[in-house]
C-alpha cells in the first residue's frame, strides 16, 4: 500500500497557493479593482499603463489554473473510495472540474489578450476586460455543484469508518453557499454584488483560498490514513 504518489500531487496545491498569493498582490487588475462603471477610454488607459504587469501575472494564473487540478484529482480518487452505489458523483465532480478550470483560464486569456496590444480599439479592450471579469467571477455553477457532489457523497457514506469526516461535507456546503453571490455580478454595477464588490469578489476569493487550504489538510490526513489500495471505480 503506497500513497506517495497522491501525497506528491497534494503538495502541488501549496505551491499553487503561494503563486496565487503572489499573483493576487501583483496583479494590477485586482489591486486597482477595475470598476464596471469605467468608460472604455479609462479602461484602455489602464491597460496601456499596466500592460507588462498584467501579462506577467497572466502567465502565472495560467499555470495556477492547471496546478489546482491535481488537488481535485486526489479528491475525486478519494470520493470514489467512498463507495456509493455508483460513481455518479465522482463523474459529476470531474466534469465540473474540467469546465470550471477552463473558465478560469479563459478569464486569464481575456485579460492577457487585452494587455497584449493595448492600443486596440477601446471598445474591444472593454469587451475583453468585461469578459475576463465575468469568466472570473460569474461561473460559480460548476464549483457549486462540485462541492455539493462531494458533500452528498460524504453524507451518503454509510460505512462504519467513513472516508471523509462528516464536517467536511458541512464545510463544502457552506463554501458552496458563499460562492453563490458571484453569479449576481450580471445584475449589478456597483455595491457588494458588482464584480469588484465585497461579496462577489473579496468574499469569493477568500472562500476559495480557504477552501483549497482546508481541503489540502483534510486530504493529506485522509491519504495518510488510507490502508487499502484504491480501486478507482470510474
Amino acid at each position, binding site marked *: 500500500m503506497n500513497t506517495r504518489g497522491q501525497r506528491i500531487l497534494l503538495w502541488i496545491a501549496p505551491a499553487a497557493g503561494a503563486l496565487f498569493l503572489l499573483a493576487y498582490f501583483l496583479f494590477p487588475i485586482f489591486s486597482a479593482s477595475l470598476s464596471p462603471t469605467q468608460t*472604455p477610454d479609462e479602461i484602455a488607459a489602464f491597460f496601456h499603463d499596466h500592460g507588462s504587469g498584467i501579462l506577467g501575472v497572466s502567465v502565472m494564473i495560467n499555470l495556477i489554473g492547471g496546478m489546482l487540478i491535481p488537488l481535485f484529482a486526489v479528491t475525486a480518487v478519494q470520493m470514489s473510495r467512498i463507495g456509493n452505489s455508483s*460513481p455518479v458523483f465522482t463523474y*459529476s465532480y470531474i466534469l465540473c472540474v474540467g469546465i470550471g478550470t477552463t473558465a478560469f483560464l479563459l478569464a486569464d486569456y481575456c485579460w492577457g489578450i487585452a494587455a497584449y496590444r493595448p492600443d486596440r480599439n477601446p471598445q474591444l479592450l*472593454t469587451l475583453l476586460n468585461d469578459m475576463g471579469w465575468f469568466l472570473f467571477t460569474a*461561473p*460559480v455553477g460548476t464549483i457549486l455543484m462540485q462541492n455539493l457532489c462531494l458533500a452528498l457523497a460524504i453524507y451518503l457514506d454509510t460505512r462504519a469508518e467513513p472516508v471523509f469526516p462528516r464536517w467536511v461535507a458541512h464545510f463544502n456546503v457552506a463554501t458552496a453557499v458563499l460562492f453563490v453571490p458571484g453569479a449576481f455580478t450580471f445584475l449589478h454595477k456597483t455595491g457588494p454584488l458588482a464584480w469588484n464588490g465585497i461579496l462577489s469578489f473579496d468574499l469569493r476569493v477568500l472562500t476559495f483560498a480557504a477552501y483549497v487550504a482546508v481541503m489540502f489538510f483534510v486530504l493529506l490526513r485522509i491519504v495518510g490514513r488510507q490502508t487499502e489500495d484504491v480501486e478507482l471505480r470510474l
Partner: protein
Amino acid sequence: MSVPAGSFASAAGVPVRPWYRSRKLDQWICFWSVPFFYNLFGLVFVPLSSMMPPKSPSASTQQIVGFFQGDHLLIACVILTLSLGLAPVSNAVYLTQIKRMSVSPAFRVAFLGGTVMGAIVGMTFPLFCFGLGAFRPGYDPAVLVMLYDFGYLAFIGSLGCFCVTWAMFGLAIILDRNRILPKWLGYYTVWQFMSELMAAPIWLTQSQPFGWNGVMTFWFAMLVYVPWQFIIYVWIYKAIKRQPEDELDNAPSRTRVRQRDTAGAAP
C-alpha cells in the same frame, strides 16, 4: 422525489427500504436533478429571455441591439450560471449507465472528454456572450452583433464535441452485451449524432432553411432530439431501477469480496 417507496425491493426478497435509505440514493438524486435541470433551462430560454427559439441570423443591427436590451436577459444569465453545474450531473447519469455496459472504458473516457468540451462551448460561451452584451449598454452595435453571432453559433453550431459524445453513447448501447439499454435506443442515438452533423450548414448561410434558426437545421433537429431526450430518461429510469442490488458498488457482498481479494493479493 417521486420514487415510490417500496420500488427498491428486489425479487430476491431483500427487505424493503424507504427511498431515503435506498442504496441507490446517489443515482436517484442525480437522476431527478435532470428533469429539474431541463425544465429550468426550458423556462429560462424560452419564456424568460426568449433566446430560444433562436432569433434570426439575418436580423438587422437594430433588432440585435433590441434583443440585448431585453428585460430579462441578465436574470436569465444569472440563473444559467448558477445551474451550469447541472449539465455535468446529467452527463454523469449517462456515464454511470455506460460504465455498466460491456464496452471498453475508453468509451466513457471519450464521452467524459466530449461533454467537458460540449459544456464549455455549448453553454459557457453563449451564456457569457449574451450576458456580456446585455451588461454594458455602451457597446458599439458592431460589437453586439459579434456577440450575437458568437453566442448563437457556439450554442447551435457546436457539433464536434456532441458528435463524439453521442457516437460513444450510441455505439456503447449497440455493442453492449449486458442489455442495460435497448438496442434500438442505440440506433436512435445514432440519429441524434446525425442531427448534430446537420449543424454544419449553419456556419455557411444566414437564411432559411439552413441558418441557425432554420427549418432543417434547428426545428427538424429538435424534432429528433426532444423525443430522444424523453425516451432516454424513461429508459435510464428503468435501468437504474432494474439494477440488481448485488451489482451496486456499495452492496455488502461486493465490499466483502473486494476486501478478500486484496487480502489474498498481498503476499
